[in-house]
């Protein structure tokens, strides 16, 4: 029972990171119908910026803020420089461009920072918390991870619901033509989506790196699981991204915990099983809504 609780809590902590990546993918998907394969690479790059700033200033929070700012800039620059020219072109072109961006960022990180594994500091203690004498399987930092992503998600949800920018984003995602006809600058909305996605990705990078180390392709596997979470939840649904991330995190934690070393070898296989089961029942994710394929 204690084990179960431990696995659940640590699964939630990791799941929130997958949720953050999933959410950033959903933000871009809703705007441009595009899967951003560079999301993990962007997060990796901003985390390197954070590590450099922390090293120079000695302050974790300055580095944290620098990573988020870099995420905003990187998201905007990527959208304006290489994604916007592909609008109206075959849809896989933009996907290939994001793959090119990913490769480019990983190569640049290798040139600027070298390929070796670097440890990344955690904001809070990483020793396990205890309730009385029972270890909970999570640390103060894990709690911070979950709360940080939760806060970001809630802020986004509030922004979507109650601000005019959020209304514009929802309108553009719902029907771009109608949104444009009613005076919304859809291109700006798309850029805003990339900015927010860059921000969330940067957050995920800073939060996950203490437990994975940082190297040029350190975010690849996190990206795959974040993508899986987004697909499980349904790519149009921000709520689905969070639910998908948590589901994936918790189940993978059980698999790793109960199946031993073989379980951790088979992480991707377990994720595949979850994905296949979900897609069998709901071919467009759990929160796909009632929209049907148009013919």
């Amino acid at each position, binding site marked *: 029972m204690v084990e179960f609780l431990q696995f659940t809590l640590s699964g939630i902590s990791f799941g929130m990171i997958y949720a953050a990546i999933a959410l950033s993918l959903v933000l871009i998907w809703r705007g441009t119908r595009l899967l951003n394969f560079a999301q993990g690479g962007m997060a990796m790059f901003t985390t390197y910026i954070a590590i450099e700033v922390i090293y120079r200033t000695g302050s974790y929070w300055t580095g944290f803020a620098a990573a988020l700012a870099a995420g905003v800039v990187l998201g905007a620059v990527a959208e304006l420089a290489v994604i916007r020219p592909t609008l*109206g072109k*075959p849809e896989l072109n933009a996907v290939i461009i994001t793959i090119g*961006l990913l490769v480019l960022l990983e*190569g640049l990180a290798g040139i600027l920072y070298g390929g070796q594994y670097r440890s990344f500091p955690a904001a809070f203690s990483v020793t396990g918390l205890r309730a009385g004498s029972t270890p909970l399987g999570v640390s103060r930092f894990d709690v911070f991870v979950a709360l940080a992503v939760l806060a970001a998600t809630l802020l986004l949800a509030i922004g979507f619901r109650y601000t005019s920018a959020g209304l514009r984003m929802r309108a553009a995602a719902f029907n771009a033509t109608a949104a444009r006809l009613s005076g919304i600058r859809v291109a700006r909305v798309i850029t805003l989506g990339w900015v927010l996605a860059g921000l969330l990705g940067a957050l995920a990078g800073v939060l996950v790196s203490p437990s994975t180390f940082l190297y040029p392709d350190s975010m690849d596997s996190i990206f795959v699981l974040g993508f899986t979470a987004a*697909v499980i939840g349904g790519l149009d649904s921000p709520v689905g991204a969070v639910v998908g991330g948590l589901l994936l995190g918790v189940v993978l934690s059980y698999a790793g915990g109960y199946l031993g070393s073989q379980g951790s070898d088979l992480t991707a296989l377990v994720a595949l099983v979850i994905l296949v089961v979900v897609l069998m029942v709901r071919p*467009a*994710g759990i929160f796909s809504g009632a929209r049907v394929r*148009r013919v």
Partner: protein
Amino acid sequence: MRAQSTPRVLGAALVVAVVVVVLSIKLNSFRDYQIAEIAIEVTAVAGLTVLTGLSGQVSLGNGAFMAIGAYTTGLLLLHLGWPFIAVLVVAAAVTAVTGAVVGAAAARLHGPYLAGATLLLGVALPSVANAYPGVFGGDQGLNVVFTTPGFLGVNFPLTRWQAWVCSAVALVTLVLLANLSRSRVGRNWRAVRDDEVAAALAGVNVARARILAFVVSASCAGMAGALLAIVTELVAPGAFTITLSIALLTAAVIGGLGTLPGAVWGSLLVVLVPTYATDVATSHGLSTSVASNIPIVAYGAVLILVMLVFPQGIQGGVRWLLGFSGVSPARPRRTASAPGATPPAGQPPALLDSSPLPREGNPPQPHEKEDTQ
């Protein structure tokens, strides 16, 4: 099948075969290895371009089929010592069956959902090798023994023989796929890609067409995996990463999705750009961390540039240069495009497409992926 086109395909294949033989004799063994590498890539990418370009199903998991082909080859050569041609046939058959299973499971999925499921397949399957080291050799993988046949003499370089075998398989695959895509099967795939409902109404069995595309694509990837096993003489999970699967799709799109010459261009680019950049970087005496990453940066930059300059891929650019645009004039066509569906590349989106892109101002793209020549 239009019979009159077959001689042209065969003629082109013959010319390429002669060029490959001459090149492999003139060039050194490293270049021979590259020829083999390109031929392997072509075999896999040609299968994928049929799946994604003709039947409209995106797969990011063809690396998994390559892994299955390679492990089948490794196990058969290790335990039974069969001749390679028999092994190749079995590898293609095994992956064809796997492709049927995956295709059946994927038949309801579209666009990014299909991409996500296949991507995870590509990541998950090789990890099985780690989980069962007794059968698959774990991280170390299986060693494969492959030698030149006796009739070529003892001094015949192994890399040249490998280049010949790989190129032969790649060319036969290309010829077969060219014929297939001109046949009724290929027309059914295009019909399904363009409008599933219309295709079904016209009597096409949509599910069967989609699954068949997976079968064909998987067996091509399986053969590519078998070739990879005999060229690298090792089958290990490290060879079948997410990068491999992504590189296959990249090559297909960069070359010109749905066109077989495009598969060749894309494979050339994906294999040669990193090696060329490595040559340049090492010859300028850069530090190792820079020199080892220059090829990666160059590769990424080339991907972005080619897509920005040639939206229809390299083959589209080639056609434009040759002034072949009259072959397949752009014609308006209704697209079965829905949120969550990725319409096939190169196709003008329907005017009232619900996808929120500012598309009204864009002229219809000349889409040139009609025939595979």
